């Protein structure tokens, strides 16, 4: 962990426009469990039953370290939680930690979809991760059939890079994954 990553907590909550990222607290555990139970079967994020929220970890502090993190996404207007963003450090691009990247995933509750909040949130998380750490690259991968998420990433300023064929196994079949990224120097 470098100095800038230890300094990251003071950046949260992090907000712009209609959305805010904030740390998960113990008070959110029941809500997260409910959301995890309600993942629509067969949806792009359905990889089977999820374990219960780790309340012991939450009692110790936010769900965030130098390897990964999970934050709550809130609507600024009324402070309502509308979903989560999770990220992890990807270490596949080279032996030096300087080659690491952040890969994130977003989940919005159905009531919050289709009004551009996801795009705003995904721009926000890139800005947050690039401000909070020294890494150069924030990436997201989505199923080629998930056209809504691809549109949201493009609206959020991510660049479409390519398609990793048959990379992900979901719902009994291998799927093509579409890759997007934002770099520190991107406009």
């Amino acid at each position, binding site marked *: 962990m470098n100095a800038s990553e230890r300094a990251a907590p003071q950046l949260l909550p992090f907000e712009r426009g209609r959305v805010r990222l904030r740390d998960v607290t113990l008070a959110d555990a029941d809500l997260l469990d409910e959301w995890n139970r309600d993942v629509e079967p067969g949806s792009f994020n359905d990889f*089977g039953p999820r374990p219960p929220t780790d309340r012991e970890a939450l009692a110790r502090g936010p769900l965030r370290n130098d390897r990964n993190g999970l934050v709550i996404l809130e609507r600024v207007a009324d402070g309502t939680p509308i979903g989560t963003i999770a990220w992890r450090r990807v270490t596949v691009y080279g032996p030096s930690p300087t080659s690491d990247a952040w890969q994130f995933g977003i989940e919005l509750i159905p009531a919050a979809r289709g009004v551009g909040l996801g795009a705003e949130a995904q721009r926000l998380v890139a800005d947050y991760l690039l401000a909070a750490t020294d890494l150069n690259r924030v990436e997201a991968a989505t199923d080629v059939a998930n056209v809504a998420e691809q549109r949201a990433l493009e609206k959020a300023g991510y660049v479409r890079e390519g398609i990793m064929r048959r990379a*992900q196994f979901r719902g009994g079949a291998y799927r093509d994954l579409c890759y997007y990224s934002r770099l520190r120097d991107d406009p």
Partner: protein
Amino acid sequence: MTGTPVASLTSTNRGLLPVGGRSVRLRDVTLADAEMLERWDLEREPDRFNNLGQPRRELPRDVLAAGPLRDGTRGRLIVERLEDRAPLGSVSWHVRRYGPNPESSCFNIGIELLPEARGHGYGTEAQRLLADWLFAASDINRVEASTDIDNLPEQRSLTKAGFTREGVTRGCQWRAGAYHDMVTFARVRSDS
């Protein structure tokens, strides 16, 4: 990488070696190769695409004495010229995950050839052999390779070896004091 499911998907134990093509073959690394491989590491050209400032590491003699350099997470093989069994370089692979479940694992491969072994098509043949062998030896569905966007010989070689160019991963690799774009190529089991 932990857990039986992953290890069984990505194990290459049923693969038979050596495996040969027209002019090269792939064989397991043995204890007798240790000094040669360390010498290759030391002599790696400073300005090459594979020079990423890796720390010089001694090869684990105890591991080599116990068996080949491959397990459920990674492996390395020697590339030899068929006619005189001269070692030309090595190929390697490691597991990469594209999802939370073990089935979303694939192999990411790499190659290093001695300078005098380049430009003869040995690398193309070695990479095709490696992909064929990995599909036969394991239950993995995808074999991929990434190379610097400026490494045109390797991109031509991967194309000739039957890999499909999938995209450019921007600004992902730190090498020689700057970020570099990488190109990803892949073969999947259903490719002809």
